Structures are given as structure tokens and as C-alpha cells.
């Protein structure tokens, strides 16, 4: 017998689908600019943001955005030094923020603070106000991405050419980092800090072999993300698996099939 899903399932579905659509175009840029590791680092700085937000009693989403933006600024500075490669600098920052975040959460320990829910999220615990964040914040992010799209693609292709043609690389990059921070903060509730970047990167990777232009890749990534999200939630409910990881498993399956088909066609 078919029974109408409970409201919490609807909320989970709406939040995850909304997030999937927002994350897809950003994920393409992240893939093109080879920024997955940067994104991971920003996401883990978010955990530090949660701890600071709890300690200072400010809105957690805002605290996460601020922490991620601060981390982006730190990475920009680290990118200017020449003692170690950016990869090593990221390795340092990535683990430092994660360790500091976990330690700070432990210090801020109080009633109802659950580290696991920040690390892995809980899509079925999404509230109405979370939904407002996803859709209002998401609409703003999509509008910004639409405006920034062309300069971002040009910078991804060739930074000097774009700059010589009049794109401002610093401002564009800063705006993108800000968008990334907002998406990470919003996504944390749904998929958690450890799997946020999968929401961005995996659909983009899955879309690449099937795309001939940047715009098509972004649209396809969004479509793949939405389908995987629906399938992942169904998997989660029917097999009693955690929601976020189930969605990511579905996304990765699509990506694997797409890459396999793509390499077949090439070879």
C-alpha cells in the first residue's frame, strides 16, 4: 500500500534538491579551477565557525560563513608565499582547521551539541527555517553565479588573458570564495562538513564527459545532482541508511558510469 510520505521526508527532499541545484554550477567552477582541496579546507573551517558561534552565541550559519571566508582569505595569503607549494599549504590548513574545529566543539560542549551531526549532517532533521536558508540563500547564490559566470569561466581558462581583457581576477575570486562559503554553510545541515564538497564536485565530474560547453556542463551537473538526490533519499529510507551519505553514493555511482562511458567513447 502506498502511503503519503511524512513531512520530514518532504523537507529532506526539498532541502537536498535545492542544495543540489545551487551546488552544481559552483561545483563546475571548483573542478575547472582545481579547487576541491580548497573547498574541503573552507568546509572544515566551518566546523571552527560552529564552535565560535556556539561560544559567542551568534547565528551558526552566519558564523560558518564568516569562518569559511576567513579561511579563504588565509589561503589567498598562503598562496603568495613561495616556501612550500600551495598543495602543502592546503594540507596544513586543512588538517589544522579540522583539528581546531573538533577541539573547539569539544570545549563548547553543552546540551544538544552533537559533533556527528555537523560532520555528517542530518538531512531528515531539516527544519522549516533551514528550508528558508536553502531557498532564499540559494536564490541569491544562483543570481550571483549567473552574474559571475562569464568572468569565472574566462579566469578558469586563462587568468592572464582574462585579466588583459578586463576581468578583475581578485574581485571575481573573492566573490566566488564568498559564494562557496555560503553554500558550505547552508549545505552543512544537509550533508555535513565532511561530505559538502561531494555535492559540488561529484555531479560536475559526472557531467563532464557528456558536455561540450561550460553552460551545458553546469545544467547537466544540476540535473544529475537532482536525480541522484532523489534516488539517494529513496535508498536511505528503504535501506535505513544515513541520508547524506546515501545521496553521495548515488552521485558517485552516476559519475563512475559517466566516466566509464566517456573513456569507452574516447578509446
Amino acid at each position: 500500500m502506498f502511503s503519503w510520505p511524512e513531512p520530514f521526508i518532504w523537507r529532506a527532499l526539498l532541502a537536498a534538491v535545492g542544495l543540489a541545484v545551487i551546488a552544481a554550477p559552483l561545483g563546475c567552477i571548483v573542478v575547472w579551477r582545481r579547487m576541491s582541496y580548497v573547498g574541503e579546507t573552507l568546509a572544515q573551517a566551518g566546523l571552527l565557525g560552529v564552535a565560535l558561534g556556539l561560544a559567542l552565541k551568534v547565528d551558526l550559519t552566519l558564523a560558518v560563513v564568516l569562518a569559511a571566508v576567513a579561511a579563504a582569505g588565509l589561503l589567498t595569503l598562503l598562496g603568495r608565499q613561495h616556501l612550500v607549494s600551495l598543495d602543502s599549504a592546503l594540507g596544513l590548513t586543512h588538517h589544522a582547521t579540522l583539528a581546531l574545529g573538533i577541539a573547539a566543539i569539544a570545549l563548547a560542549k553543552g546540551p544538544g551539541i552533537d559533533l556527528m551531526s555537523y560532520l555528517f549532517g542530518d538531512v531528515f532533521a531539516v527544519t522549516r527555517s533551514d528550508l528558508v536558508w536553502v531557498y532564499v540563500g540559494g536564490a541569491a547564490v544562483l543570481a550571483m553565479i549567473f552574474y559571475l559566470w562569464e568572468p569565472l569561466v574566462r579566469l578558469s581558462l586563462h587568468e592572464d588573458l582574462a585579466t588583459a581583457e578586463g576581468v578583475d581576477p581578485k574581485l571575481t575570486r573573492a566573490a566566488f570564495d564568498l559564494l562557496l562559503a555560503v553554500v558550505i554553510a547552508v549545505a552543512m545541515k544537509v550533508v555535513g562538513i565532511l561530505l559538502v564538497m561531494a555535492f559540488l564536485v561529484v555531479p560536475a565530474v559526472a557531467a563532464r564527459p557528456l558536455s561540450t560547453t561550460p553552460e551545458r556542463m553546469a545544467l547537466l551537473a544540476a540535473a544529475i545532482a537532482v536525480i541522484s538526490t532523489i534516488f539517494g533519499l529513496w535508498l536511505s529510507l528503504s535501506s535505513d541508511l544515513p541520508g547524506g551519505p546515501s545521496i553521495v553514493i548515488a552521485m558517485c555511482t552516476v559519475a563512475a558510469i559517466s566516466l566509464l562511458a566517456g573513456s569507452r567513447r574516447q578509446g
Partner: protein
Amino acid sequence: MSLFRPSDAAGLQTVAAEGPPACGHVHDGGHEPQPAGDALISARDLWLRHGGRDVIAGVNLEVRCGEIVTLIGPNGAGKTTLVRLILGIEKPDRGLIVRPPTTRIGYVPQRFEVDRTIPMTVRSFLALGGSAAATDIESALDEVGALRTAHQQLSRLSGGETQRVLIARALLRRPNLLILDEPARGVDFAGEAELYELIGGLRDKRHLGILLVSHDLHVVMAKSDRVICLNGHVCCSGKPEHVSQHAEYARIFGPKGAAALSVYRHHHDHAHDLTGETKPLGDADAQRRGS
């Protein structure tokens, strides 16, 4: 707050020169150097320090309508840095870049290797960030001899095709000054000659000023009106044959470099056939690089 700088605000050091150069119209073949007032861009006493070293030391440079200026110099001589200063990507510590408001620059960067992860057809690349109509894109591709690449993926082009597509993109901006940074890099020898043929042809047909960066001397020099030999500072400059006999030039490139140049010019005067004649040149070039 705009994400785009007006393209003629290339930095604080840029000043607008009075008296726009009459340039960009087609001349019947003539491309004699013109008076100094016609400069499309001029760099005056540029200085830039990087890592405790003067990468650019008191460089003066000028490009006028219809003239090909070739910037040569060994690796690390600051050629690309100078181009970045002229384009306003980087700012000099001292010095001026004078750029009349009528100067429109088309830029062909060095090492344009498109990441495979970015799906992009040649056509969509040429349309990106501009307002070119489909017919403009086609005629630009036709002009550079790359029309058949229109639907190919950018990351799959050969070195020569990539350079042609980049030149087409530069032309779509309707430039009167074309700046090409090592356009022959990653192009085989025959392709290199064709590429310089194309660039020379653009100068003749569109009466463009051209600033060409190269560390290969022979082919470039034959087509240049003026050669500037850079090694942090300007070592010497002048007509190609003048520069090749300059003591400073010989010191930097060695007698073999100078020999390669004269060999090429001799052959170039006879024919454009590049099959047999190029062999000894290539050897001499290899020896120069090795030395």
C-alpha cells in the same frame, strides 16, 4: 563596484596621451615606421623588482602603427614580465605606460593550455565575454585559417591551431595593437613559419602595430621592423641586421645565434620554400640553445 575594469585603465601608471594615432585603416602595403607621436603604446623607464632582483630595469619601448617590434632575449630576461606590465596585469615599481585612448589591444598569451576538464568549443570560446556575432566569429576564424576547427574542443587543438584561434579571438576585439607572447611555442618549424607569415600578413592588411615576444630569433627577425634585445634592461635595439651585429647581442646569444639569423635572411630572400633550407638553420638553433 564593477567586476570589469575599463580596458584602458591599465593601472595607476597609465596616462592617456593626447593626439590619438591615426591607425587601424588599411594602407597599401607600406609599413614604414612613423613619427613618435603615433605610438600605440609606449613604456617609459619601467622598473620592477622581484625577489631582490631588478627583473625590469629602466626599459623604454614603443610600438607604432603598422610596425612589428620583436622582443627577444634569453629565458628569464623579463620578456613576459614586460608584456604583463604593458598589458596592465602587473604594475611597475616605477615608470609610465602611455596608452592613447584609441589604442585597442589584442593579446595572445604564452602557453595557453586548456584544462581537459573545461568543455569548450572553439566557437563558444570566441563568443565568450564578447559581443561578436556568429558571422564575425566565422570570418575571424577564416582570416587566420582555422575555420574547420569551429566545432572542435579547445583542449584538442594542436599547438598551431590553438595559436590561430587565439589570434582570431584577439582580432574579434578589433585591435590596432596585437601583442603576441611567444606565439610559436609548441608549433613545429613549418607551422612556425606559416604563423609568422600570417602575423606579417595581418600587419600588412590591417595596418596593425605588433609586439612580438620570442626567444627564437631567425624567422621573427626577418619580418621585424625593429628588434629589442632584452636582458632585464634593453641591451640593444634597432633594425634586425643592426641588432644581429651588435656586440651585446653576440654576447647573449653567442656567435651561432647571429649566424643563424644571417643564414635565414639569405634563404628568405630567395624563396619561401621551407623544406631543404630549414635544416641547417634548425641545427644552428639547437646549438645556440645548447650553448
